[in-house]
């Protein structure tokens, strides 16, 4: 029978299964960051003047900022001047109208990832807006969505086709100078997704984007903006894998959500970027700013994330509960293995009356991974009868990893009710023994226990993702425990 140590080693030696590089000719800007580069990006994308000014203002703000160092992560400093800030597939000029026109190599990449577009297209109701590096290559199901008035397109297209909406909402939730990485993103964002759900429309399918980092030295700077107008509903999926790299790749995305009265947004993420090899070489730096604004009354924003990849994760999907009776939710599973470091959590800012928030965070550390939950719950004086429930559990697998919990709780209204609970545990010998006794192999037992540990979060994932998430967790941890 495999012992704990054996299986941990087995996991530790597992290579990244999705590591490969696709050769596609790229139209790349020279490395480095300057006002000229930003003007180049903006011109390349044929952007209006106000957006260029917006970018430049963010850039000037960014120049004055210092990289934050409060997170519980250690990494090699990033040389922002050696990064290419723009890369687009050659085929940009004559965009393919159907899958047949797409570069077969790109298609092959998706094939290897197990998410062939063709199958995706046929999959029940999932529209895929695939971002290959920085420019969207294919968008499906758009017509069906447009019948309902739903706008689901790449960010660059939105700038061309719906400038009034972009201008109205861009930067309203995450201001362009919000923080170091958000300002960087605002200055150089290349593309991303744009979603607008009109009043009273319930989006009939899960909207989904698969991001894929490719091309050497290209940081990706997506910008996602989702607006749910009054009484609408949308569920958005985001998922990623990346090829093996020796050089660290920077990823600084910004996601903004706006929910108007009675609107509901469900945002789910499965993140499986290249985490670096056993020594921690390579791997993606994932520095993301995600924030949702519950603008209207009775609106609801729900974040669900499964974080298994990246060398360093710095990510705090947050909710500003502004409208009365609005609801914020955060469900997270974060796995850090080998030398991975994750500093993740959420912020719930209660402004409106009777607002409520729920935080469920599950951290799993294995190998030499370091997992940190950092969360903030702020109940402002105006938030009468606000309610918060937080639970953050950590599981440690092996004795070289670490789990850390840093919740910040600030309550300025006595009618608020808030509870915070946290626990740290490991898989008990007795639990394994119990399963072994009943003929369940150690590995299956571990997988079962870990899945049980994360159940509360997986339950929140849409069908398509729940399956993938469980598989990911198995790949990340399978064989790692005894």
């Amino acid at each position, binding site marked *: 029978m495999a012992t704990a140590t054996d299986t941990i080693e087995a996991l530790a030696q597992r290579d990244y299964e999705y590591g490969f590089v696709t050769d596609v000719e790229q139209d790349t800007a020279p490395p480095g960051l300057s006002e000229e580069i930003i003007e180049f990006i903006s011109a390349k994308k044929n952007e209006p003047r106000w957006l260029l000014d917006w970018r430049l203002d963010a850039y000037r703000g960014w120049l004055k900022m210092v990289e934050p160092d*409060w997170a519980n992560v250690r990494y090699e400093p990033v040389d922002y001047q050696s990064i290419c800030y723009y890369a687009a597939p050659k085929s940009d000029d004559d965009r393919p109208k159907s899958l047949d026109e797409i570069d077969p190599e790109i298609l092959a990449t998706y094939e290897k990832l197990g998410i062939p577009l063709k199958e995706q297209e046929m999959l029940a109701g999932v529209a895929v807006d695939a971002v290959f590096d920085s420019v969207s290559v294919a968008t499906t199901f758009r017509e069906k969505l447009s019948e309902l008035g739903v706008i689901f397109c790449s960010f660059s297209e939105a700038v061309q086709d719906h400038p009034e909406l972009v201008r109205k909402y861009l930067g309203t939730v995450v201001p362009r100078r919000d923080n170091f990485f958000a300002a960087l993103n605002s200055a150089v964002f290349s593309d991303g997704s744009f979603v607008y759900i009109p009043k009273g429309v319930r989006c009939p399918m899960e909207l989904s984007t698969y991001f894929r980092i490719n091309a050497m030295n290209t940081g990706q700077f997506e910008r996602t903006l989702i607006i749910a107008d009054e009484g609408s509903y949308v569920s958005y999926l985001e998922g990623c894998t990346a090829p093996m790299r020796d050089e660290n790749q920077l990823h600084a995305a910004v996601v903004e959500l706006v929910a108007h009265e009675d609107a509901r947004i469900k945002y789910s993420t499965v993140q499986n970027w290249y985490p670096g090899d056993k020594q921690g070489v390579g791997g993606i730096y994932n520095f993301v700013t995600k924030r949702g604004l519950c603008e209207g009354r009775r609106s609801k924003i729900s974040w669900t994330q499964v974080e298994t990849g990246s060398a360093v994760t710095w990510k705090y999907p947050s909710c500003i509960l502004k409208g009365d009776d609005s609801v914020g939710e955060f469900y997270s599973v974060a796995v850090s293995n080998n030398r991975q470091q994750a500093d993740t959590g959420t912020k719930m800012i209660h402004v409106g009356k009777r607002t409520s928030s729920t935080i469920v965070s599950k951290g799993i550390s294995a190998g030499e991974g370091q997992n940190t939950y950092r969360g903030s719950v702020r109940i402002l*004086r105006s938030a009468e009868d606000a309610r918060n429930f937080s639970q953050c559990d*950590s599981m*440690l*697998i*092996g*004795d*070289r*990893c*670490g*789990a*850390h*919990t*840093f*919740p*910040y*709780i*600030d*309550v*300025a*209204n*006595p*009618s*608020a*009710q*808030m*509870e*915070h*609970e*946290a*626990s*740290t*545990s*490991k898989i008990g010998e007795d639990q394994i023994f119990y399963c072994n006794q009943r003929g369940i192999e150690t590995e299956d037992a571990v997988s079962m226990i870990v899945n049980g540990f994360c159940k509360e979060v997986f339950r929140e994932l849409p069908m398509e993702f729940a399956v993938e998430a469980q598989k990911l967790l198995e790949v990340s941890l399978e064989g790692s425990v005894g």
Partner: protein
Amino acid sequence: MTAVTPTPTAQYLDLFARRGERSGEAAPVRLRRRQAIERFEAAGFPGRGDEEWRQTNIAPLLRSAVTEASREEVGARQARRFLYQGCDRLVFVNGRFAVELSSIPKEIAVSSLADLEATGGAADAVAEHLGATVDGRASCSADAVVHPFAALNTGLFEDGAAIVIPAGAAVERPLQVLWLSAPAAGAAADSLEVSFPRLLVVAGENSQASIIETFVAVNGAAGGYFVCPAAEFVCRAGSVLHHTRLQADASDAFHLGFQHTELERSAVFDSSSLTFGGGLVRNDAVALLDGEGAHCTLDGLYVVAGSQFVDNHMRVEHRQPHTTSHQLYKGVLDDRARSVFNGRIYVHKAAQKTDAKQTNRNLLLSRSALANSNPQLEIFADDVRCTHGSTIGRLDEDALFYLRARGLPREQAYGMLVYAFARELVEKTSFEPLRQDLEGRLRASLNGGPGGGEAA
């Protein structure tokens, strides 16, 4: 304000320079004093940007000019009000030993730090331990930085108590250490009198004792003063030490203290910190569980109103296997009072089978009160049980209604419920006079119900 106000740091360095070196002091202590003041000079006072001090605004303290505490005489009658029947006592007035008010037990070696030869008995322990750990440097993890006020105390303390409990002794009578503040009546209104009470307790192997620290001001002490205490506890293998720290300073006083505990194998340290007074209060407590089977309890209660601010910072480090720690902090906040709870449990790689529990519960009685709670866990061992919990809320309206329906006036019903919330910390002590005193203080502070005035 005087015409020339020196910079905050310079004032304290000046106090150090004026004090000069003391002849009778052991060489290691003298060295540690100098090192401490050098570290303080290098680090300076913390700003808001400093994560450990982010929520503690010490600006009002730094704005004030400070002078050395005056040499006031306090009569036996005045002191007696704060002394408990049935225990031995050490009385300090403005940080200086008042021998005529004290009674020194026979089975314990007790020395006044200012006059080690005369009182004798604890000189060796002082040379070995005093100031060896107390500025927080010794709490090993990388982010442990110099605690500026502990360093100040080490550099500047004038007197204090060194208590050595011999191995195997079981001291029956509790020992009360009374720290009386008696600022001079005619003191200049624009400067604070500052005192640096210092306590060292060494509990010998398999010994048992109970220590009560009381921080109070003599009757009617008005005008601000600044108490900057530091205490060190060394618990040898198998010792059991009970510690109660009652802080009831004047409501405009500054109180920034530091407490450091080291536990060896199977030692038990059971401590309660009760905060009623002080305008700007900060209590830092560090406990290092450095031997298998060691256990420490750090409990606390803060009952504050007006514009009081109280900040409790705790750090418990599990360094060896099979160690346990418990923390229960409860707070009652009225008016514009603010509280911060910052507890960190740090479990080292070696400390398998750790069992740590941390709980913070806050009761807000007014709309303007604010509670901040930051319970933190840092865990590097995998076979541990660590939990923390935190709640903030107001009184249960249903319970209030129930009591009022039975004819209790609103204030009384309120008082009863708040008392019920806090009582487990008050009733923890088995020493009856202390228990009664705490109960009285709790009741007095709840008198008249919540001050917000607005009908619930």
